[in-house]
C-alpha cells in the first residue's frame, strides 16, 4: 500500500512542481509575451512590472489549485472505482487538475494593491460586463455546457433509478454530468465575481494590469468549462463502447470549432482598456 501512496503523491506533486516552474522570470516573460503577442500592445516598463508580479502570483496559485484538483480527482475516482464504477472515470483527475489550475489562477487575480483613501484614483470609464470581455459565442458555449451537464445528470438519475444493469455503460453519466454542471456554475459565478471587482488604480499601469488579468482569468475559466465537457463526453462515449471514429471526431471538432475563441493568446478586443490606453506595435 505504501508504494501506492508514494505513487499518488508523486502523481500529485509532479504537475504542481511543473506549475511552480512558471514562477521563474524566463517562464513568466514567456507566458506574458505569448498571451499578449496577438494584441500587439506596446507595454511600458511599469506596466510590465505589474504584469510580471501578477504572473508570479498566478503561477503560485495555479500550482496550488492544480495540486488540490489532482488530489481531489484521484481520491474521488478511486472511491468511485472501488464501488464498482467503470474506468470511464480514469480521466477525472486530469479534468479536476485543470479546473483547480484555472480556479487558482483566477483567484490570484483577486489580489489588489491597497490604496489609501487620500490617493488620486483613475478610471478608463470602461464598463465591466460579460459582453465587454467575452464573446457571445464563448458565453453561449459555457451556458450550453451547463445545460448538457444538467441533461446528462438527469439521464444518469433515470438510469440509476430504473435498471442500472440494463445500461452499464451509462453509469458514469450522473457523476460526469454533475461535474460538468458544477464546473460551469462555479466558473460563471467566479467570472461574475471577477467582473465585479473594483479596479483601484492610481495610474495607467494598474488599469492595464487589471484589464489583462481579467481577460486571462475569464478566458481560462471559459476554456476549462469546455474542456471538462469534452473530456466527459469522451469518457461517456468510451464507456458505452462507441466507435473510436466518433470519439476522435469529437476531439477533432473540439480542436477545430473552439480553437479560435478559446485561444490561449489574448486578442485585442479581449482587453478593451489596454487597447484604448496603450499603443500598438503595428497596425493589424
Amino acid at each position, binding site marked *: 500500500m505504501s508504494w501506492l501512496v508514494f505513487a499518488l503523491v508523486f502523481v500529485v506533486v509532479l504537475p504542481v512542481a511543473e506549475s511552480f516552474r512558471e514562477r521563474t522570470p524566463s517562464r513568466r516573460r514567456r507566458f506574458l509575451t505569448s498571451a499578449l503577442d496577438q494584441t500587439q500592445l506596446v507595454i511600458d516598463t511599469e506596466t510590465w512590472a505589474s504584469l510580471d508580479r501578477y504572473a508570479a502570483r498566478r503561477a503560485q496559485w495555479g500550482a496550488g489549485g492544480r495540486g488540490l484538483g489532482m488530489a481531489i480527482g484521484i481520491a474521488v475516482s478511486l472511491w468511485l472505482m472501488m464501488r464498482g464504477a467503470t474506468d470511464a472515470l480514469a480521466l477525472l483527475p486530469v479534468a479536476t487538475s485543470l479546473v483547480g489550475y484555472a480556479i487558482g489562477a483566477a483567484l490570484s487575480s483577486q489580489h489588489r494593491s491597497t*490604496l489609501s*483613501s*487620500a*490617493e*488620486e*484614483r*483613475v*478610471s*478608463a*470609464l*470602461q*464598463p*465591466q460586463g460579460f459582453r465587454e470581455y467575452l464573446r457571445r459565442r464563448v458565453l453561449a458555449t459555457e451556458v450550453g455546457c451547463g445545460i448538457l451537464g444538467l441533461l446528462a445528470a438527469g439521464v444518469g438519475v433515470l438510469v440509476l433509478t430504473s435498471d442500472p444493469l440494463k445500461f452499464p455503460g451509462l453509469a458514469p453519466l450522473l457523476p460526469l454530468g454533475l461535474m460538468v454542471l458544477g464546473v460551469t456554475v462555479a466558473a460563471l459565478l467566479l467570472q461574475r465575481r471577477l467582473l*465585479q471587482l*473594483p*479596479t*483601484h*488604480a492610481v495610474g*495607467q499601469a494598474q*488599469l492595464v494590469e487589471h484589464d489583462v488579468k481579467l481577460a486571462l482569468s475569464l478566458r481560462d475559466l471559459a476554456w476549462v468549462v469546455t474542456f471538462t465537457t469534452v473530456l466527459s463526453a469522451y469518457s461517456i462515449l468510451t464507456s458505452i463502447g462507441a466507435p473510436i471514429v466518433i470519439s476522435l471526431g469529437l476531439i477533432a471538432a473540439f480542436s477545430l470549432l473552439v480553437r479560435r475563441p478559446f485561444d490561449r493568446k489574448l486578442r485585442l478586443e479581449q482587453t478593451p482598456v489596454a487597447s*484604448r*490606453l496603450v499603443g500598438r506595435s503595428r497596425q493589424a
Partner: protein
Amino acid sequence: MKLLRIDPGGEAPPYEQLRTQIAAMAAEGELTAGQKLPTVRQLAADLGLAANTVARAYRELEADGVISTQGRRGTFVRSALLDGAASPSPRTDAHKAAATLAATARGLGLSLAETTRLVEGAWSHTGRSRS
C-alpha cells in the same frame, strides 16, 4: 486617451470633478457618442467614492444632455444624431443641410476643397453679420 482622475483632496467636490471631466471628454471626442459608461456602482467602487456621489454626477450630466440612461441597458454618451431619429434636433438639421450641400456640390462638379472654401466663406460671412 485621457483617464478620469478623481483627487479626494481636490478643491472641487468629487461629483463635480466627475461631472466636468466626463462632460469635457464627451465634448473633446474622447468619449464617443453611443459609448457605454460603467454602472454607478462599478465606477463608485473603482474610484473609491460613494454610489450617491457618482449617481449625482450622472444625474447632472443627464440633465445637461451629455449622457442618457436607458433603463437596464445602461448609461450611454448621448448621440445627437441618434437621438434626432426620435426627436429632431438642430444638429440633425445641420447634418441634413450638410448632406444637401455635399450632393449639390457634387452635382455641380465642385471638389471637396472648393466646397470647404465655400463653407468657410459662408461661415465667416454669417459670423460678421451676427456680430
